């Protein structure tokens, strides 16, 4: 069964100023896509193609202008309070900018414990133990638990956000460029953690990125977006071969693994 599905979704933004509103600028245009349990799907595209907007619509942070988002069988527009709670517990999201995603006046411990309280009813000692486990799963020490966001590096704080997303044991995690600002060895460590959760708990992922290297490593299916449309959908098997112009442009822009002179020498 599909965990989340977009059916013919469209979205436009307009900006308002003193002289009135501008013409609405379409950002998403008739998008349909599904994510099934245990699937890792990549959403690939250049800056401004609408991939983050689609991610925000999928978790109900914004409403589509046209079309529908379905959580299981139900439209997001028909969800009651318990339904939203279930959606929040089932689908978690990690954003690109960790400083903007946390309360600057909360400690790391409280940031991670918040969804445990609201979504799982876990408090006190039980919550503290769970926070400790979550911190260690993302490679952070208990020593960081009482720090505030500004006392951590960007990479540490992003891992706090990942720990928070893992807290309610979600079935789907939407990662919006969530590892691209980490050092390489941390990126790989996080991908290994995600892969382990997929294997042991059948967690699905929507991996929003422009880095094809990570797509090849991590995903089974890739959607290519260009100017608000999905222009290509293809399974990932070995190295990616795209048929769309946008897919090929993205693939041509991947940085080389080795210096040119070494690749030319065939090593």
């Amino acid at each position, binding site marked *: 069964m599909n965990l989340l599905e977009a059916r013919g979704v469209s979205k436009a933004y307009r900006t308002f100023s003193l002289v009135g509103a501008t013409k609405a600028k379409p950002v998403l245009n008739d998008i349909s896509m599904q994510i099934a349990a245990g699937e890792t799907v990549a959403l690939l595209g*250049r*800056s*401004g193609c609408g991939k983050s907007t689609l991610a925000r619509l999928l978790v109900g942070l914004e409403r589509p202008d046209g079309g529908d988002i379905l959580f299981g069988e139900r439209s997001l527009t028909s969800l009651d309070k318990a339904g939203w709670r279930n959606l929040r517990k089932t689908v978690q999201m990690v954003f690109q900018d960790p400083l903007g995603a946390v309360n600057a006046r909360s400690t790391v411990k409280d940031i991670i414990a918040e969804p445990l309280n609201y979504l799982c009813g876990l408090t006190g000692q039980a919550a503290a133990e769970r926070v400790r486990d979550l911190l260690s799963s993302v490679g952070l020490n208990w020593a960081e638990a009482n720090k505030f966001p500004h006392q951590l*590096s960007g*990479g540490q704080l992003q891992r706090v956000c990942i720990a928070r997303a893992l807290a309610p044991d979600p079935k789907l995690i939407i990662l919006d460029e969530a590892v691209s600002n980490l*050092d*390489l*060895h941390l990126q*790989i460590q996080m991908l290994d953690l995600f892969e382990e959760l997929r294997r042991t708990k059948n967690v699905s992922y929507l991996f929003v990125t*422009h*880095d*094809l*290297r*990570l797509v*090849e*490593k991590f995903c089974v299916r890739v959607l290519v977006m260009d100017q608000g449309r999905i222009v290509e959908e293809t399974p990932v098997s070995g190295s990616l071969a795209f048929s769309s112009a946008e897919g090929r*442009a*993205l693939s*041509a*822009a*991947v*940085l*080389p*693994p*080795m*210096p*040119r*002179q*070494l690749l030319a020498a065939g*090593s």
Partner: protein
Amino acid sequence: MTSSTLAIEGISVETARHGSPLVLVDNVSLILGAGEVLALVGANGSGKSLTCAASLDVLPPGTRMTSGSVSIDGSVLQRSMLRARHIATIMQNPRSAFNPVRTMQEHARETLSALGIPKAEGDQRILQAIRASGLDEPERLLRLHSFEMSGGMLQRMMIALALATEAPFLFADEPTTDLDLIVQREILDLLDHLKRERRLGILLVTHDMGVVAKLADRVAVMDGGRIVETAPVADIFLAPRHVTTQRLVEAHLSLYNLSGVAA
């Protein structure tokens, strides 16, 4: 201006933590030639950006340089006189490098008047530099503010300002880290072109070995404030000697499902 060698010699930077001195950059020396890209790589906090800042006398408050000098073609120069005259700089986040209430034209004039270049000559130079940076319609662009331009356009504009100074060397500190893949490729191609055509000597600060593979001729690896290895780019990828370099290359190659060539 034809300068052929920039030498950064014995730079050390320290800060005070809980009252006692803490060394952040420890006796770093680098040599950068004309028409060469030297990559300075290392993890976050290894001292790459501080080395550049110390060389240009723009260290952040609370840090100070305890030793070191910078010379061009053998003569030691006052570091505060290097900026824009000998060394231009582009940075990671071009948006934060521009004043949002000033147009591109005002930025260009400020940069060039600081160098004592007459306005008419400066305006000519900037138009040429914008074209050389791969941007069309320079006259129209000069009327824009930074919020009216994309990240890729702004980074090209930064490069245009750097070119307009006619400085022979360029410090590029994570120049493509915030840009998307396609724009990154375009900017790296542009830097490569400028290296070849203008014999620009580029110090490329990065943590991405893919960027190194694409652009660098030589690589200096930093760890804990020290240079632990300097070698031609091929040796870095094929036969990294220091454990820090080996880890960097191995992690990088694992992204491509390739294993390290070196044992």
